[in-house]
């Protein structure tokens, strides 16, 4: 089980990378949605006051 050196070779196989990066993009999109909601709130508050 012990792959040696710094990272397990099993985890850094080339065919896994598209999936990893896709996951990373998903995370960024999720955070962007949170930001967009906050921006919407700010616009609303700007209109109200």
């Amino acid at each position, binding site marked *: 089980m012990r792959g040696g050196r710094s990272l397990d070779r099993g*985890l850094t196989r080339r065919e896994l990378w598209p999936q990893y990066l896709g996951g*990373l993009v*998903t995370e960024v999109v*999720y955070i962007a949605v949170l930001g967009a909601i906050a*921006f919407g709130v700010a616009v609303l508050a*700007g209109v109200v006051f």
Partner: protein
Amino acid sequence: MLLRPRREDHLVIGKYTGKIVIGIGFLMVVPLLTSIAFGEWDTVVDFVISISLCMAFGYGTQAVCRTDRDLGWSHGLVVASSSWLVATAIGAMPHWLSGHMGSYLDAMFDVMSGYTTTGLYLMQDLDHIAHGLNMWRHLLTFAGGQGIVVIALTFLFKGAAGAYTVYVGEGKDERLLPNVVQTARAIWLVSLVWLAIGAAALAIAGLALGQDPVRAVLHGLWVYMGAWSTGGFAPQSYNTLYYHSLAYELIAIVVMIAGSFNFALHWAVWTGNRREIRRNVETVSFAITLTLLVLIATFALAKAGVYSDAMVLFRKVFYQLASGHTTTGFSTIYSRAFVTQWGPIGMLATTIAMAIGASACSTAGGIKGIRVGVIAKAFLQDIRKWVSPEHALITERYHHIRDITLSDGLVRSAMTITIAYVLLYALMTLAGVLYGYDFADAVFEGVSAASNTGLSCGVTSPSMPEGLKALYIFAMWLGRLEFMSVFVLGGYAVSLVRGRR
């Protein structure tokens, strides 16, 4: 009943604590090399002294504590909590030797704040410190976020079976992969990929903002480390206000929110389970509380007329609240501006955000989304029971990687830790008030320390009472390790004196 520990117990604990301190010594090689590269010879000597101390302590302890026994459950917890203390005591050496700290206690405050990814600091004249020391500040916060133990697991433990308990003792209890060492490696993989992308994005932004290439790269790396570890250290005393840039702020927000995700969530999303990000109890809980608090703070600040237009409101409110909720502690306003500009409602919203914190098994602190989610579900379940016919069977589920049925045991343990956090917050508030600070300031700062956030409203300063500094150090340690291993260490200490043979 407490059993008095035997000689073998001390040996096991000593051996593994020694290993972790050796790990800290190796970590200091990075700032040492940085100082050599920039010709900061006085700082080089500081790091040589500190590395020698780590090695002397670590190898000395190992030589004395020779044993083949593996770690038992309570050993692991004691190793986790005690190694954080020793690592703080020795890790404070470079800070203290730099001449920028008022006392050794101040230096320990900064280092504990770094390891626990809090971000409060007492360093004076930060704007004139060496690159090597700045590297150490940010590296130790990055290391603390990853988990000092996770680092030791990856490089030093060589797959000891009992290592899992040390890992749990550090407040991380998810197995991403069946094997704990592989789990540690998966955590590294996620963090290093984010490091490459996040630091590069910040460095490019810095270049575009007019920084020279060397400073842009260093600042990019350091701000990334501060954000990903939800630590909140930054290379300049102006924190991230220094950059005056929407782009820089947005990248920092993305990194700090990503850093506040549970590593199990990262791993699920990265291995193809994309839907997990909107189904997970912690992301749902985080999205709800963040949005509610942003709503409150935005309307309060808009009504008070502090910020003029929507863009300004968004940039200030979302940044400080995202920073507070992820327990990062970056800010684009002055500390005292929380009091002089944001006022009670803004401070209250930020305090609640810090108190809740982000995800379990991440770099973040606070009560954590999973507990808030579980308790909220349990609350709803009870209400549904009251309004349903007597014999109706009401079950409640939450989703974390898989669907989990709510059991009383689960709710109970979530409640226990939540109550422990609330008590710690209350204790820190009380201490602040007793030392003569305003109630709102004392709550804000006390919660900030105990939830490992690091936003400040001005209470923390080099001339604050020594007693309060010590209490904040204790709160940061307790909050980061989520009580259990600290209590076990306390039990170990008591059993030394009073335990049964």
